[in-house]
């Protein structure tokens, strides 16, 4: 193959915004309970777009013919999430925030905002589409590898959160998440490596958080990574949550596409067969020792399969760590609702299939030495659908463009084809909005000072290392509040970044951190206790014990004034002795000062 393939990589970031929901006036909060206030059941059908085309991803999803169940929570949902009421006008705060962030990213803002409908029929939206609006284009970001273009920024609604897919295929979702605003940023394919990709994702994340209105917590930011190599294809890897994993994901995907290119090379002479002859092989297994095949047959399922000419050995080629080409084909069978496939490059004895049965399969399928076979166990219609999809994939003589889902180890699995062009059409229930000068002025205010200004401010308040940490910290908003209250910046920062984090590691979780911190430090500023007592106090506050009681029961009230004077004299002005015994109750600086006056 010669030269090293050049990577083409871009990233798409979705960040939840901490404003009201986008198209209704519900709060952007998630229900704290699991038991819904009501449940509704819907069945969605893909319809032709206004352009008269049916989206291929939508069609594929519809073939599954499933019901969707939605858990509704009355505090966080209204009739809009249930698709029982048309959308309300777009949330002003969210829109201004997104526009403001766009100005910080050197973007060209559109003259008119048009809300569009993006077809989604996986049930993650009750309406069958996700509302999205392009806000700006042509921006850029400075990075260590030069400028990275920001192609587009859009504001869109978050989907419903999936709870589970039931045995009968019904998907269950919760509606509290639906409609929370997301800012969606898509970069140009200017990213040069996995490490660079991570840097870009981190920087964009920091810019978003600097606005002070990015939601924090699990799942509030998601990265989709787009990767291709020459002669490969664009693959969109969805649901990347951990930035540290990005370099690994990029490496694995590049290697996957390289391995697929090598497989294609081997298959050059092998003709593609899109509609192979599917054979019912059930009779071979009438007396099988394979208990799972036996169980399936008794339940009315069939063993069916087809031959993959010229594929012997190819299904066993590893294309991702621990995943073979056979797994890639199995992912396609999974889209028809199957758990997987069985193929001839596997050790079939692990399924309880013996050599005699293998020989019979080969005879029945007319499979030669150079051929491979694929079999599945399922109800006949489902088995045929799954095998047809496997065959369709195996017949490709190019790398297909795909949407893939990331696994925890950085490998990925096939989800669906890349969405087609017919996926978007105008949302007719919402008027187009002119972006006027006065809107832009308000937007700049809404998005705050921006990352660089914030960085500068932090560097003035903290040492360089802590400033860097605070810039990324989820506690930066609380930090600003505490500093405003008059708390020494370094003390506020170390409490939030070191003490709280250390306690969290020990399993001590403080519930309403903002309120707890404000309360704690207002008493500290009153001179009720000293810095070093904070680490002793916090675990008890976490348990819900009031501060006053903690100070009393643990005897942590600060010693000052006359009492301190007495203490110093009692200890013959021995600083070391005093600090050793009263570390949690006296302030070293104060002791020193007082000693000098005595």
């Amino acid at each position, binding site marked *: 193959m010669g030269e090293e393939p050049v990577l083409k990589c871009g990233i798409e970031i979705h960040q939840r915004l901490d404003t009201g929901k986008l198209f*209704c006036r519900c709060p952007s909060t998630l229900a704290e309970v699991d038991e819904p206030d*009501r449940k509704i059941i819907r069945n969605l059908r893909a319809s032709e777009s206004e352009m008269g085309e049916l989206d291929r991803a939508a069609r594929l999803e519809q073939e599954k013919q499933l019901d969707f169940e939605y858990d509704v929570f009355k505090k966080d949902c209204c*009739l809009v999430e249930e698709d029982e009421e048309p959308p309300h006008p777009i949330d002003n705060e969210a829109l201004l925030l997104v526009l403001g962030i766009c100005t910080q990213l050197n973007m060209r803002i559109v003259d008119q905002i048009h809300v569009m409908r993006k077809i989604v029929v996986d049930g993650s939206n009750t309406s069958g589409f996700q509302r999205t609006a392009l806000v700006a284009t042509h921006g850029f970001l400075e990075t260590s590898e030069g400028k990275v273009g920001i192609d587009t920024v859009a504001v869109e609604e978050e989907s419903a959160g999936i709870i589970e897919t039931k045995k009968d295929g019904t998907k269950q979702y919760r509606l509290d998440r639906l409609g929370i605003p997301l800012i969606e940023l898509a970069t140009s394919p200017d990213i040069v490596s996995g490490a660079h990709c991570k840097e870009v994702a981190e920087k964009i994340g920091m810019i978003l958080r600097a606005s002070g209105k990015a939601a924090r917590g699990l799942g509030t930011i998601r990265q989709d990574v787009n990767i291709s190599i020459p002669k490969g294809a664009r693959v969109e890897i969805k649901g990347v949550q951990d930035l540290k994993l990005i370099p690994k994901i990029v490496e694995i995907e590049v290697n996957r596409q390289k391995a697929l290119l090598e497989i294609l090379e081997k298959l050059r002479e092998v003709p593609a067969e899109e509609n192979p002859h599917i054979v019912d092989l059930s009779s071979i297994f009438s007396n099988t020792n394979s208990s799972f095949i036996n169980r399936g047959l008794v339940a009315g399922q069939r063993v069916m399969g087809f031959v993959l000419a010229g594929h012997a050995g190819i299904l066993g080629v590893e294309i991702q760590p621990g995943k073979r080409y056979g797994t890639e084909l199995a992912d396609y069978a999974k889209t028809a609702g199957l758990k997987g496939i069985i193929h001839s490059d596997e050790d079939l004895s692990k399924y309880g299939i013996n050599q005699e049965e293998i020989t019979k399969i080969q005879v029945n399928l007319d499979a030669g030495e150079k051929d491979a076979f694929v079999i599945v166990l399922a109800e006949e219609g489902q088995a045929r659908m799954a095998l047809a999809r496997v065959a369709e994939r195996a017949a490709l003589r190019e790398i297909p463009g795909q949407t893939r889902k990331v696994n925890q180890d950085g490998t990925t699995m096939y989800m669906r084809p890349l969405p087609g062009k017919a996926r978007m059409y105008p949302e007719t229930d919402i008027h187009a909005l002119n972006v006027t000068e006065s809107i832009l002025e308000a937007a700049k205010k809404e998005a705050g000072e921006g990352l660089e200004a914030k960085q500068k401010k932090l560097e003035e308040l903290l040492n360089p290392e802590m400033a860097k940490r605070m810039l990324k910290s989820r506690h930066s908003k609380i930090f600003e509040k505490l500093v405003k209250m008059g708390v020494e910046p370094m003390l506020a920062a170390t409490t939030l970044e070191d003490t709280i984090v250390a306690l969290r590691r020990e399993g001590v979780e403080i519930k309403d951190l903002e309120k707890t911190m404000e309360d704690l430090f207002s008493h500290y500023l009153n001179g009720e206790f000293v810095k070093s007592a904070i680490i002793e106090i916090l675990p008890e506050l976490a348990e819900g014990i009031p501060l006053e009681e903690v100070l009393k029961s643990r005897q942590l009230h600060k010693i000052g004034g006359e009492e301190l004077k007495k203490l110093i004299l009692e200890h013959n002005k021995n600083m070391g002795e005093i600090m050793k015994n009263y570390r949690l109750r006296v302030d070293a600086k104060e002791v020193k000062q007082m000693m000098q006056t005595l």
Partner: protein
Amino acid sequence: MHTSSRAAFRSINTTPLAKADFSKNLLEPLGEYKKRGEGKLQFDNKINDNVALIYAYPGLKPKLIDSLADYDGIVLAGTGLGHVSTDPFNVPHVKSVLPEIKALSDSGIPVVMSSQCIYGRVNLNVYTAGRLLQDAGVIGSDADWTPEAAYAKLCWVLGHQKDPKKVAEEMMEPIAGEISSRSRIEEVD
């Protein structure tokens, strides 16, 4: 909401204020309400009741709307999301009342939309009829008031305000729970 059933006085587009348990002599509040003594109470009886409330129906004649020019304000109880006949596609035999509504609005008479559906919210952004009505100056999109609440409110606003622009603004400002921003799911259970 029903001529005779026990649900006759059921709260529309809002939850009931409270649940009464007579056996225990208990009143359990269900929605938001102002407690007695919480705010200052002021009697304000400036009302202009020269307001008409007109129901839309197939065959509503333009001359009926035309005849309302003596009123200081009009509340329409439209169909569905808040519609009257606008005939956007020039269908033969259909009489649009749009020009007459626009003439009233242009002359400074506020025209307010509500819906004859018992539950739900006016939305003039969804169908062409609604958009045309908005262009003609009709106010009320996004309000979940009943026709009667819209009527009472318009009487009150007109009692305090004559400037049509300000009337429109004040109409859309919730003052006593007549417009809520969320259509809560328990309201239509």
